[in-house]
């Protein structure tokens, strides 16, 4: 399988991945970092809202709902978790 790096927003429900180094200039990034979504953190896509946006992810035992536009600031590596 090719290196499975994709935007967080593109993950499918149930998929897991590890966060890659982040783009620091996106306005959502400081908040995500403060919540502990750091490079190396494992995330899981829990649910996508009925209208396609926002999405709900899980990391560090918490569940967070965020818009795809904000999730786009974060890349994840799916390969590391299969």
């Amino acid at each position: 399988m090719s290196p499975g790096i994709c935007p967080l927003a593109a993950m499918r429900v149930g998929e897991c991945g590890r966060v890659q180094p982040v783009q620091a200039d996106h306005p959502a990034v400081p908040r995500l970092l403060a919540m502990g979504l750091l490079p190396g953190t494992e995330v899981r896509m829990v649910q996508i809202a009925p209208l396609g946006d926002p999405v709900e992810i899980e990391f560090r035992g918490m569940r967070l709902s965020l818009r795809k536009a904000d999730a786009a600031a974060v890349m994840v590596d799916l390969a590391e978790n299969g």
Partner: protein
Amino acid sequence: MTTGLSSAPRTLRVALMGNPNTGKTTLFNRLTGSRQKIGNYPGVTVEKKFGSWEYGGRTVVLVDLPGTYSLAAASPDERVALDFLTGNLAGEQPPDAVICVVDASNIVRNLFLASQVADLGLPLVIALNMADAADKAGIIIDTALLSRRLGVPVVRTVATKGDGIEALEKAVNHVVDDRSLMACVPWPESVDRAMARLAEGVDEAGVQRLSPGELRRVLFDPRSAVLERAGWPADADPALLLAPARGILAADGIQPASAEALLRYEHLGHLTADAIRFPEKRRRTWTERVDAVLTHRVWGMAVFILMMFLVFQSIYSWAGPFMEAIETGVAWVQELVAPWLEPWPALQSLAVDGVVGGVGGVVIFLPQILILFFFIALLEDTGYMARGAFLMDRIFGWCGLNGKSFVPMLSSYACAIPGILATRTIEDPRARLTTILVAPLMSCSARLPVYTLLIGAFIEPAYGAAAAGLTLFAMHFVGLAVAVPVAWGMNKFILRTHPQPFLLEIPPYRRPRLRDILWRMWERAREFLVRAGTVIVAITVIIWALVYFPRPDSVGARVESELAASGAGVEDISRRIDAAYIEQSYLARAGRAVQPLFEPAGFDWKITVGVLASFPAREVIIATLGTIYGVGTDADEESDDLRSALARDVWTGGRRAGEPVFTVPVALAIMVFFALCLQCGATVAVMAKESNWGWAVFAFCYMTFLAWAGAVLTYQLGTRWLAL
């Protein structure tokens, strides 16, 4: 009392900090015996609240702060927290100690904030709250070890049951004397150099000196409120000041934007590693099972709509017996009072028709408001609110609002005032303003009496109980349906907001506590009754006077002589006399003068007067109609309810003479008017306080116009095309 403490202050100021929804307010209520609002979603507390307790001869003043994830202070409520900690509020010192409330199921993330607070040099106690939930999840925490590692007291608490409260009080007393500081992050040496450089820059710029903790905030948060508070001009670009210091970090290979989070989390991870043990295998929690349905792509929406429908259906059907009981009570009081005041007809009318009839008419609707509150409290306490925001965010996104507008908007269904206060969690000032401007369009509980009166009188008899519930449900969507394009227009043409990050933590479901729910219902009931006893009584008395006077004897004599010839019965004569008096009263004259404005909506002068009198508070319409129709009937006769009086009323003149005043389109037009109009003085005042008077007046004007247009449209559509 030991002498060792004599040097310490006798009044301590302690701040309660922590991530949103960790139980700070629950703990605050336990510690201080207060009853501040709690709820299972992030962002319940948006203002600081004070309370106090006594311990060891000291008075401890506790401040409950809004929850925050970091001290970056992006939204107004987070600024409140930061300003309080740094002593930047006018006339206030930094607190003597901080209780940091930490969710025991998610310790590391919660400690991030604690470590930022510790950097400001404040003594700290950690309350490991929701320890019961952590136990259930199989998380094992060595509190003593954690306390040793962190260097500050760690107290296990279960705020809902009151466990650990005493230990917490003791720990607070202890750290104030001890000044226990939490273990510091071992910052790389380049961070120290960068801070030194920044301090020079601050000195050169001539703004107020900053403490090392504040300097660190400025270094890491590009838009920190600290600089502004220190006197940095709002229009000057802080980048100039920051560039040299941040350059030092970059030269060392440290990215300033993510450095703080990475370093702190790494440090905290090390400190806590052997003190917390997570269960080997992740269990599927029941929150996940429930959410598999409630936030499901298809079922989620279906359940949401079905649930809302059931709420309104039950408001409509459950309240019946209670309303009848109150109605009987009001009639009983009227019958009791009437004979006493027989010798003074004017006074009798004032008491029976004005005060008791008018206010009683409003109080009848208390049960429905309580049922609505019961459901809202249930949604808030179980944790469904955050799910609602998740489901609806896209719709808000289309019109430029954000998912965080959901909580203020839903709260506005109870009352717009807390709804408007709840907008403080919204970071973007313009998105916040838009939310404030549309929040009063949400159908608040004070509109409920208007809807149910008219639905009960005209929709239910004509179309049945199911249609009645459906109409009530639909009325609660009218405001929302209008709010979406209004918000869109405001964003597009007036405020021009930029998309904002929307991050909302989804809490686990929790069992609601009946006591909390009953308390909130009681508070609302009290407020409603106080309003009925003050504002509404006052307006009712004025209305009564205007509808009762003038009373020239000539009017009665004329009607009597006219009718005597036609051989009408005594009862009929007295009713006609009353009607004749009302038709020439001051109120009728004024009402008729304004009525042409509402002619296209099908309102007669009585409805017009009711609508105008309701601008200070919308419930007044019920009292006004009650008074007008009350004066219209003989006080001694079996007082029948307002519904049948409305249904009986006919036009006395004009082209519709003899036709009923209230038809289905008229009833719908009145409801639409009330759904869209800003008839609440208190809300206008709060809007002015949270934005400014200009916007409050703007909101008042646009909503009044929309209400009028909506009523006209409804009436015209209803009579011409639907032939209702």
